[in-house]
């Protein structure tokens, strides 16, 4: 009886250790949030028009060519990208870079010029232009680029960005 109890206690201890180790592994590196990309019409006026494509760090050059070096030096892990359309008028692309940590996202963010930018409050830092929005949230750097400019584009970008930021915050 005493032997059986000891064995059970050992098994429980081992199971607990395994669970703790797994939890530590999960928290060791950031993951791309499961659903950071809003589905169609989850953000007013925005329709998701393409599948999500993902490029891991080793293949990042296939997506952004020479720019990949800057991201690699900052510890990028992957980029996921999807196409959107606003009110059937303005096409846009959303890129979400998952960096190794928040410092990496900040490093890339700060390495870019900030001319003619509209300062806004979004995530941990953001820049809004007439046709694009860049912001960082934790270990993620998000870039949304619209291919046409209109009177509504900037506000629409901000709304989409806010929708994505909300999803990133839910991790």
């Amino acid at each position: 009886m005493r032997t059986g109890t000891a064995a059970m206690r050992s098994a429980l201890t081992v199971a607990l250790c395994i669970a703790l180790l797994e939890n530590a592994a999960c928290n060791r590196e950031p993951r791309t949030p499961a659903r950071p990309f809003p589905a169609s019409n989850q953000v007013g006026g925005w329709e998701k028009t393409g599948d999500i494509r993902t490029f891991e760090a080793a293949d990042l050059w296939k997506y952004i060519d020479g720019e990949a070096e800057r991201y690699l030096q900052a510890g990028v892990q992957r980029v996921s990208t999807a196409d959107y359309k606003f009110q059937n008028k303005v096409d846009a692309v959303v890129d979400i870079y998952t960096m190794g940590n928040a410092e990496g996202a900040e490093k890339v963010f700060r390495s870019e010029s900030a001319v003619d930018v509209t300062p806004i409050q979004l995530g941990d830092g953001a820049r809004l232009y007439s046709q694009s929005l860049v912001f960082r949230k934790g270990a993620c750097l998000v870039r949304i680029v619209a291919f046409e400019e209109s009177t509504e584009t900037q506000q629409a970008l901000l709304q989409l960005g806010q929708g994505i930021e909300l999803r990133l915050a839910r991790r």
Partner: protein
Amino acid sequence: MSIKSSTSRRDFLKKCLTGAAVLRASGRMGLLAATEQGTALAKSRVVMARDAMLRGAGTTVDSRRMLILLDRAMQALFDRDNAIETWKNLVRPGETVGLKVNALGGRGFSSNLQLVEAICERLQEAGIKANDIVVWDRDSDELEHAGFHVSTGGNRVQCFGTDRVDYEQKLVTHGSVGSRLSKILTQSCNVLINVPVLKDHDGAGVTISLKNMYGVIHNPNKYHPNGCDPYIADLNMLPEIRTKMRLTICDATTASYEGGPGYKPEYSWKNNALIVSQDPVALDYTGWQIIERKRAEKGLKTLEGDGRAPHYIATAADAQHRLGTNDPRKIAVAEL
């Protein structure tokens, strides 16, 4: 470096051939003024044609205006009064022509669709069969994302990426470069027309004609250190590229001066121009100056000041490569 717009095409040609051109330098571009040459001095011709109304009142390029703009550029470059004649000088019926576009920038910043259509139209009028024209880059998905319609087979212009046919097994080498070439280059075309986009580049400084050949090889990611130098020049020395390349038509309709090569609309501008030349080094040099001028206008440092001067251009022109000239005294630029 600019020639007065009132200069006739025939004068432009004469000056290119005799070297007696007196070119008015633009102070903002910081280029040398040409001196009177007593001796004959062959010059590389670069034509920049612009249409301020290329997009009409909207943002999309007008197809008809693009065709006219292409014609103007080609007629000036080849000194012909008839657009079709310029193309007949360039290609022969029975040849297969590959248009190496640049689809990396996606919808907003790839080789312009209307430009590519215009080139295809003129090639066919010059006697090239539709299915002997291949519009290509490295990846079919990338082409689709850029707005091209991937199409193979049938009696129509072909459009697909190297992913459909793969790279040659054999490694070809020159200098610092050892790569496998796209089978589209080696097996599907015997004439190459380069259709790059005018962009600045994070590493190389600029990416225009010569660097567009990175899309021809299986391992371009290996050739980005040191500002892509001497890799760009060495790559363009490969015989399969050198012997087939006939012309560069640079899409300068939308160009970038910062943040490239990806599309950053905040750092791009609607230039509404084409730059054509048979000297890719001279074209890249000219494009570089255009980008520097825009950077100065926006209050940005020069590319050199930003730590990314395009040294590869000088390498491409040096004695070991001689891919063209980067000497402004030997480049005749006509702005139409």
